[in-house]
């Protein structure tokens, strides 16, 4: 499934790396439910959120500056940061 990472820049403890925000990738696998780190980091009652691994091509992430366009980066992203493409 193709997804895009939200390009949001809220303050706080965010586990979505800045270099992947706004980038499009493909869900590689679903991992399961985890406490939302954005609340958990502050000892707030946290909701369970679904975590998935998303695969991005170097071409998508770095554009023309990609070292090898077909190499990939895979990262864990919470689904509330993702929207379907």
């Amino acid at each position: 499934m193709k997804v895009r990472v939200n390009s949001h820049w809220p303050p706080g403890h965010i586990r979505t790396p800045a270099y992947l925000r706004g980038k499009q990738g493909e869900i590689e696998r679903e991992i399961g439910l985890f406490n939302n780190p954005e609340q958990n980091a502050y000892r707030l009652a946290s909701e369970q959120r679904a975590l998935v691994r998303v695969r991005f091509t170097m071409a998508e992430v770095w554009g023309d500056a990609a070292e090898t366009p077909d190499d990939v980066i895979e990262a864990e992203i919470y689904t509330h940061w993702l929207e379907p493409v």
Partner: protein
Amino acid sequence: MPHDHQNDEPLSSSGHPYRADNDTTLSYWQVMEIAVRELLIEKGHISASQVHEQINRMDARSPANGASIVARAWTDPQFKAALLTNASQTSQDMGFDIGPMHLIALENTEKVHNVIVCTLCSCYPRNLLGLPPDWYKSRAYRSRTVVEPRKVLSEFGLEFNQKIQIRVHDSTADMRYIVIPYQPAESEGLSETELAKWITRDSMIGVGLPRAPA
């Protein structure tokens, strides 16, 4: 890059910088740790020897744990399949206490080479590989590996042609990763115990290859 030191540091005879004496005052959190630890001990919840034992237990974890898992994966296809499907459960079934760690195993093949990084901090599968090497926590490794992995790998002595896909895994959240390196042809047929000696820490991070024991 794996072995950079600052140029202005005084070096020991082995060419390594001396570690500075810790003459600075304690930080806020160091004072907090001491206060909480002493309170717990005074109130009889834990003992000083229990704290020390736990530190020793953490220090005793080494890449040998990961190596025995990889060696089993190399010799037992069913085990490897289980490991690739659910590495946490499979490692636990093998008797490894991986604690609350959620593990994913990544297989290197003729066409794919995996390498692990944590760009946000320095997440590392300590239960299987012990303490992370200093370079793993450096800003250079953490930032460059996602931008120019082939260049970084070449600095570790690894060159891959363009037919091999490099997959960089950024440990951004709750998972930890271990690479199952591609088994060298020369090691085929060896026992699991013999094979474990081929599997280096770096090969399980993805910045090295297995090699015959010295």
